[in-house]
């Protein structure tokens, strides 16, 4: 693949906890480690979010300035566990619970899921981009979205070996397409990286994490939380299904907005690819992953809805925040 990118370095700390954790990650031999140095509370939600984001990154491609062994450093894992328990509690507190629908599991679940997604109300970033965003605003959005899109599908990939036969085959079929069907130049994260370079932004992972607001970090952290805990496999797949089921039409609006602004074809191609790809993926995620998971273990259904809600709720909150900023500008 022609796209070679710089390896990420730790982001800037955003408070006492992230400062100490990042220092400890860089210098694992520090004596201070044994004296409760890392047992401080985060100064803010932002401090907590950047700390957890960086700790999760150790399970993906890591950082140039952190030893690979830090991923399983028990002191760092203790901090991660504390922060992710808080995050999960906050996300569960926002969730209104499993929506009522006639029947249970199977086709009834599939229909109920698609209907619930369609009826979910939230402000739309893609309509704003389609009709009125400026090039600067679209570039701002791409910088924030790059935190996830440059590692697109990676959190869900952790779930593969945790599923029973039918759902496992379903997830692999979906992921095979996400990862380019064996062709590195079609890997979705790589398509996005090419788009970033073409619009004049940095294509390397984590390049814009320092300017990501708390909510963007929390979106990424929720996906890693769900993907890295077998216990939360239902939430991971519910999140995936909701993400895919809210992608095709918004991606077309994004592409139309960028065409209106005359932006680079490579970035438009990324969004155009997702119009058709996600029209397939939403069907696979709901019918070939979530429904078979419920058939094998009905208890997993609640977390599927929890993950789906988290996906749409976080995106709606981010959209509200960005639109408020843009409309005030």
């Amino acid at each position: 693949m022609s796209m070679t990118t710089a390896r990420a370095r730790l982001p800037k700390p955003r408070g006492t906890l992230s400062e100490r954790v990042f220092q400890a990650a860089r210098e694992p031999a520090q004596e201070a480690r044994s004296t409760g140095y890392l047992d401080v509370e985060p100064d803010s939600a932002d401090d907590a979010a950047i700390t957890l984001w960086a700790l999760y990154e150790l399970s993906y491609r890591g950082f140039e300035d952190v030893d690979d062994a830090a991923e399983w450093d028990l002191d760092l894992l203790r901090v991660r566990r504390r922060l992710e328990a808080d995050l999960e509690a906050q996300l569960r507190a926002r969730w209104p619970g499993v929506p009522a629908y006639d029947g249970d599991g199977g086709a009834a679940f599939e229909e109920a899921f698609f209907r619930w997604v369609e009826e979910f109300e939230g402000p739309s970033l893609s309509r704003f981009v389609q009709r009125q965003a400026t090039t600067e605003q679209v570039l701002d959005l791409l910088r924030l979205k790059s935190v996830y899109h440059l590692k697109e599908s990676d959190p869900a990939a952790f779930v593969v070996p945790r599923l029973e036969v039918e759902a496992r085959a379903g997830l692999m079929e979906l992921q095979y397409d996400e990862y380019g069907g064996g062709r590195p130049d079609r890997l979705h994260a790589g398509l996005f990286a090419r788009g970033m370079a073409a619009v004049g932004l940095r294509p390397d992972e984590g390049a814009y994490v320092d300017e990501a607001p708390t909510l963007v970090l929390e979106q990424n952290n929720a996906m890693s939380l769900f993907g890295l805990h077998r216990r939360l496999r239902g939430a991971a797949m519910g999140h995936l299904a909701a993400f895919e089921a809210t992608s095709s039409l918004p991606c077309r609006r994004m592409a139309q907005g960028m065409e209106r602004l005359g932006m680079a074809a490579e970035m438009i191609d990324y969004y155009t690819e997702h119009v058709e790809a996600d029209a397939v993926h939403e069907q696979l995620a709901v019918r070939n992953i979530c429904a078979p998971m419920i058939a094998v273990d009905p208890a997993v259904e609640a977390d599927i809805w929890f993950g789906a809600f988290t996906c749409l709720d976080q995106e709606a909150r981010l959209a509200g925040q960005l639109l408020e900023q843009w409309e005030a500008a």
Partner: protein
Amino acid sequence: MSNADIVVCPGGPLLIRGDHVIRDEDGAEHATVRPVSAVCRCGKSATKPWCDGTHKLIPEKNRP
């Protein structure tokens, strides 16, 4: 367990697994490019023969 290669999605597209070439009503041929493809059944897709999710924008009673 479903091993079907062609699946009708209620209210949505036709899923086809594997490599196929589809000839549309104008005689143009379209090759699939992904492991599973979604073929439009509502007739409203902007990227026919492929589904682009437009069926969600039409009233439920008019969906395929």
